């Protein structure tokens, strides 16, 4: 039964009772946390999926555009055209706390405000297909950044949910039953001790009375 030995004392009983109260409260709180995390996670993961599908489709079509662009001009010209980018993207990161999980929030800034700075080449030697290809990729970039944010959030939340779920289960199926068992064991043991000492006292009292008054001898004499 009780796998770990507990000493059946009153002090231990109080300790176990306190442990049970804490565990029960912790269990309730963690369960609430898990439920709320799960709700938010499911919302976010759906968004993640749609974003991912969108981004993958976008990149696929951008890649096709790049292949077409590449077909229209020589490899060297293409390499030279994209060699020295004019535009630069910076990220400002902060974190948002969702149910004690820190999830990243990205805010992106470009070095120049001009949207045409993505074309890092003169238009003399490149085909217009390249412009289209670069444009299609630029269009998908905001979604890609949003995807980076959401996907990371999902990964972090998933591992947090897993941890919380383990804790809830450990409390529910191990810690709480164990404390209850221990409490029962100690109460029974204490009751048993009390009964046995009660009986011992009664017996001793009988013996002392017998010693003092000699009831048995008097009874025999009367008979």
């Amino acid at each position, binding site marked *: 039964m009780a796998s770990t030995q507990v000493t059946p004392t009153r002090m231990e009983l109080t300790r176990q009772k306190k442990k049970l109260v804490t565990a029960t409260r912790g269990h309730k709180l963690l369960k609430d946390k898990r439920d709320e995390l799960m709700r938010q996670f499911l919302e976010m993961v759906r968004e993640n999926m749609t974003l991912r599908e969108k981004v993958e489709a976008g990149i696929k079509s951008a890649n096709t555009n790049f292949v077409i662009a590449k077909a229209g001009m020589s490899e060297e010209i293409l390499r030279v055209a*994209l060699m020295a*980018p004019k535009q630069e993207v910076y990220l400002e990161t902060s974190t948002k706390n969702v149910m004690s999980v820190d999830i990243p929030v990205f805010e992106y800034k470009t070095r120049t405000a001009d949207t045409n700075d993505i074309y890092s080449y003169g238009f003399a030697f490149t085909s217009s297909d390249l412009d289209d290809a670069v444009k299609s990729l630029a269009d998908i970039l905001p979604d890609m950044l949003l995807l980076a944010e959401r996907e990371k959030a999902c990964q972090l939340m998933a591992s947090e949910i897993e941890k919380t779920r383990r804790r809830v289960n450990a409390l529910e199926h191990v810690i709480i039953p164990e404390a209850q068992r221990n409490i029962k064991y100690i109460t029974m043991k204490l009751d048993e001790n009390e009964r046995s000492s009660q009986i011992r006292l009664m017996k001793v009292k009988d013996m002392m009375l017998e010693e003092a008054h000699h009831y048995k001898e008097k009874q025999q004499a009367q008979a």
Partner: protein
Amino acid sequence: MYKIAVLGDYDSIYGFAALGLDTFPVTDPAEAAKELHRLAGGEYAVIYITEGLAAQIGHEIGKYKEQVLPSIILIPGVSGNTGMGIEGVKKSVEQAVGSDILFSEK
């Protein structure tokens, strides 16, 4: 202030250079793993990596899963979509819920 990196074979990623992302063309898995650790160590908050390359260094990518930064995101390469990115999303659902209840029918 963080930057964004793109990792993969040259043909899949050269377009991102025009947008202002830093591209790192690598094909060798060992080299890619080294590059990934270098990028993740500092100034890059988001690292896009092609699915083909990611498949070869999945273990290295897994190390960063629990950290807030960097966010390592798989993107399809020029050779096509392997479905690994979608698989990753399904994996996290599985991790959280226990089984894939959302996207299993697809």
